């Protein structure tokens, strides 16, 4: 029986996304190297995310305020440095 719930799609989407990232990693090898430079492994990152996508948005750039969503959690934080890095990445 096909599970066509949005949650079902979510799980499918996560799996598909993970596969895509894996393909990029294998193709370039750069991601693993980048992880090594900050002293973290892919397994640790996966564990921290609980296998779920993390969504972050900058709520007020001038104040360095952002919101992070993971699973059912919502965390508001103020981190001008991180906001700057995200803004640079977006351009």
């Amino acid at each position, binding site marked *: *029986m*096909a*599970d*066509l*719930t*949005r*949650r*079902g*799609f*979510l799980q499918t*989407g*996560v799996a598909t*996304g993970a596969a895509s990232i894996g393909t990029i990693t294998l193709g370039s090898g750069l991601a693993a190297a980048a992880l090594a430079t900050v002293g973290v492994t892919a397994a640790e990152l996966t564990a921290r995310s609980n296998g*779920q*996508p*993390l*969504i972050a948005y900058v709520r007020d750039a001038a104040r360095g305020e952002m919101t992070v*969503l*993971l*699973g*059912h*959690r*919502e965390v508001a934080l103020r981190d001008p440095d991180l906001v700057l890095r995200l803004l640079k990445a977006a351009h």
Partner: protein
Amino acid sequence: MSSHREAPGISKDPVADNTDLYAFVSPDNSGTVTLIANYIPLEGPDGGPNFYEFGDDVLYEINVDNDGDGDKDVSFRFEFTTEVLNPETFLYNTGQITGLNDSHFNRRQFYTVSRVHGDDVQVLGSHLASPPVNIGPRSTPNYGNLANAAIHTLSGGVKVFAGQRIEGFYVDLGSVFDLAALRPFQSLHLIHPPLNSDGVDSTKAVNVHSMAIQVPKSWLTHDGSTPTSVTGSNSTIGVWAAAYRRKSHVRGDDIESGPWVQVSRMGNPLFNEVIVPMGKKDRWNAVPPSEDNDFLKYVLHPELAGLLPFLYPGVFPKLAAYTLPRGDLQAILLTGIPSGVVGGFQNFTGPKPADMLRLNMAVPPTTVNPNPLGLVAGDAAGFPNGRRVFDDVATVEVRAIAGLVLPLVDPTNFPSADGAAALVSDFTSAQVAAIVGSARYQSSFPYLGNPKDGFDNPS
């Protein structure tokens, strides 16, 4: 309408749009209370091939406040999943559906219903089947049998149903939205057609999706007791329904994340629709009743009370002259009615203003000739003491706004209401009697009648 498409934001999200809420002592099981929340406004019975269904991505709750603070103390939570037997067909049903397990019933919904106290979530039932929609005599013959099979009896005698029902709320939509014209009185309107006429029952052939649950009264009180005294501190509860979506939805990747965020709610019928101004309706849908002090001024000085004397010149002179805050509406909609206003009755939950349907559970159900005008007609088992499926809430609220019960609350400054306040309605009394006596309602759970089928409706 009652709360159908009542705010700009939620009108674009029908599966999360709470259209009606009912709370009443079950007439055939007076130790219990039945709570019903309806969603999806104005379902055309023929609306295929993707017929109406609950949202798998929506969290639905019927909330109960039993200590007067406007925050939920007990909730009944419904979560849905959709399963498709054969995704390689476009058909909702691949043949005649004669049972809930019929292999021709291709697209099915199941749900989990839970009782929630704070962080404590008690699953009452899971993978409970919803019936199919009522497609027509070829696809869904013996629809009553299908629907009855979807009434689930759970532990403790709790009954639950989630599925399509006929719309129980009756109103003359085309009339009331045409500058508050009431056809039986339209000759008195500022812009008047020549003759009065009967109202048009706009919702007689549309459906909704209902979640109904029947639970012991003791599940709803703050002390776990069964209320027996109308004046008891445990007798009155406040009820509202709400729908929630995840905070974030990334389109394309179809990712949802973050906490549940309230997108719709409903307590008293017509509150957000008629009382709250357009610019604040979406915000009202996003906050709990405990924040309704922000909307108090719209209850105390309702826009419609100013419009009635203007649109019906000379008909409401006493209402036009009354400029004080409307304590009567504050009691009906935001605090409940204190003792001493209506003899032998109260459903006061305290001074905290909160739009909730207040039900004094110690008032016994009226089992013989219940009056659809409820409390104002002497039937204390009806609206605004909770709300039964057949209550004529549009008439009750229009008459209340017109000042019918204001003399009870402010006899000094408003000793008597305009004569028209006891008469205004969008239907004649004969029409209402015919509606109330129709198959729109049934005498047992889930009390709303079987939905109209799509082959015969519209006709």
